[in-house]
């Protein structure tokens, strides 16, 4: 019986010829990731293992991004714990303020992940690296601790849903609209325990930024991982970022899928997910006048350079609506610098937005833009659960950078097609 992309990568990392859905395996890891919230718990667990060091100093990474720059004394203590651990164990890839960015934007940029890798991260959006053709999944701190110690993790081999992409995205429509559309279609547990495998002729029109965004939100459909078939765009990306030699795993022609879903990219419209679940996806035909108090453009989902470019194109020469606080967060230092050099930050600041240092900050209600009772935000982030960005009676509407930028200008949830007078 044929194997899916994911199954082939897992078999290859478990030293097995073949694996089947449902099989429990112990796979070797190419990278183990943690952040300033999950790593302290992992470090405490690691200390119970009586190991002198981590399994490979090059294959463990910690990124201080969630509550960093330290939002309070407790956050400072957590970052210190990570800093001390990485210093003592000589962990090479420790990213502190000044070097850090939002982990899932940072790692591909730094070339730490390549095609064919198996990666675990104590952060649910670790599934992002599936865009590079890696098997990459979120785990908890105990898994991280054990991964750091022995370089292995246990997995139940997943079955898969195949997404066959055709067509090409229209202007002001991006990967975010695609994934919100898909989650709207299959639901927040529509891919539970399974892989989401993306393939088809439509792939060639999707940039790496679109793919990273789509894979990033696979977890919001409950998936174990999202993964894209490797093509020239992938290979160019990993090469340009100095990643290790890619290993390309292609699904067998007779691979078995639970389901095949066709997605015509040409038909995708600007999409918004309403509170309080990512599956509440609507297009603008169904969206009335919804006034907003805040816009957040950033996060591991949409804080990349292309996201800032698209937002700046829409906001250029315009003013943010009165009463709307607009917060732009470049995801990494490199993106920040490039956005500065390209004049994007100037556009944001002149429009009345603020530009923040890289941080996960408001996405998880940490800091840098918390909502109070009754407030509403349009955010390019990934979750709109109750209380996610602050008060339990606040609301988060998930959208693309283009929708967020358009909404910043009008002060209500708006389509970029309308704001830019784009004829569809």
């Amino acid at each position, binding site marked *: 019986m044929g194997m899916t992309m994911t199954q082939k990568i897992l078999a290859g990392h478990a030293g097995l010829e073949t694996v089947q859905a449902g099989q*429990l395996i*112990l796979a070797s890891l190419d990278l183990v990731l943690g952040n300033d*919230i*999950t790593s*302290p*718990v992992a470090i*405490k*667990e690691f200390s*119970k*293992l*009586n190991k002198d060091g981590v399994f490979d100093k090059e294959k463990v990474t910690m990124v201080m991004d*969630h*509550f960093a720059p330290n*939002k*309070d004394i*407790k*956050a400072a203590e*957590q970052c210190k714990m990570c800093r001390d651990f990485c210093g003592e164990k000589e962990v090479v890839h420790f990213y502190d303020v000044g070097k850090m960015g939002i982990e899932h934007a940072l790692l591909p940029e730094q070339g730490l992940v390549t095609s064919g890798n198996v990666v675990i*991260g*104590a*952060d*649910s959006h*670790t599934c992002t690296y599936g865009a590079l053709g890696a098997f990459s999944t*979120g*785990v*908890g*701190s*105990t*898994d991280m*601790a*054990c991964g750091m*110690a*022995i370089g*292995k993790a*246990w997995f139940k081999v997943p079955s898969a849903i195949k997404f066959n992409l055709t067509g090409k995205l229209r202007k002001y429509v991006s990967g975010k609209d695609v994934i919100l559309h898909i989650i709207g279609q299959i639901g*927040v*547990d529509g891919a*539970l*325990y399974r892989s989401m495998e993306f393939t088809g002729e439509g792939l060639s029109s999707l940039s790496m930024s679109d793919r990273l965004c789509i894979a990033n939100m696979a*977890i919001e459909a*409950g998936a*174990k991982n999202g993964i894209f078939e490797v093509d020239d765009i992938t290979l160019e990306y990993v090469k340009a970022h100095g990643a290790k030699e890619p290993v390309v795993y292609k699904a067998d022609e007779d691979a078995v899928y639970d389901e095949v879903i066709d997605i015509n990219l040409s038909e995708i419209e600007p999409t918004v997910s309403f509170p309080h*679940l990512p599956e509440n996806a609507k297009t603008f035909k169904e969206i009335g006048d919804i006034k907003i108090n805040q816009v957040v453009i950033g996060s591991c989902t949409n804080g990349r350079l292309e996201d800032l470019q698209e937002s700046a194109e829409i906001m250029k020469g315009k003013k943010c609506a009165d009463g709307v606080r607009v917060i732009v967060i470049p995801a990494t230092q490199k993106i920040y610098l490039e956005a500065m050099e390209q004049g994007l930050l100037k556009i944001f600041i002149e429009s009345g937005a603020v530009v923040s240092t890289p941080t996960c900050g408001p996405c*998880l*209600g*940490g800091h840098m833009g918390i909502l109070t009772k009754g407030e509403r935000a349009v955010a390019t982030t990934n*979750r709109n*659960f*109750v*209380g*996610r960005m602050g008060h*339990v009676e606040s609301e988060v509407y998930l959208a693309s950078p283009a929708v967020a930028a358009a909404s910043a200008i009008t002060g209500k949830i708006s389509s970029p097609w309308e704001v830019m007078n784009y004829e569809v």
Partner: protein
Amino acid sequence: MKYEGKVIKYGDNVDTDVIIPARYLNTSDHAELASHCMEDLDKTFVTRVQQGDIITAGFNFGCGSSREHAPIAIKASGISLVIAKSFARIFYRNSINIGLAIVECPEAVAGISEGDKVEADMDNGIIRNLTTGKEYKTAPFPEFVQKIIENGGLINSIAEGIIK
């Protein structure tokens, strides 16, 4: 392993942001996490939960963030077992890894009400509603997972050389 307790019942898609809101993630102290458990979904939880109580819930329990603080908060608040129609996968493996007993059984969830007394015999995969007298069957854990739980979690399994 046997569990017995009073049931606290929730619905579908209970996410880790309501189980333990991110504003409390600047600590990993178990008791402190437990003191805010379920705060954004049910403010009464921490005052009414008793040692050994059982949570029942709908589909996709524990969806969202990978924060292990969520099963830690539940376990530290005294909950002995979570029965759900289904679990989000990271929450599922985190619970196994830290030794919080969890089981999927849609029929039991449908047949158990808030406040019922429930007994679960996980060696034989039987859940009994002591209030109504009804009994539900559930699948036992796979052997590999059973080993991890029997050894008190993943850390012990590695420390004792059961997983290398």
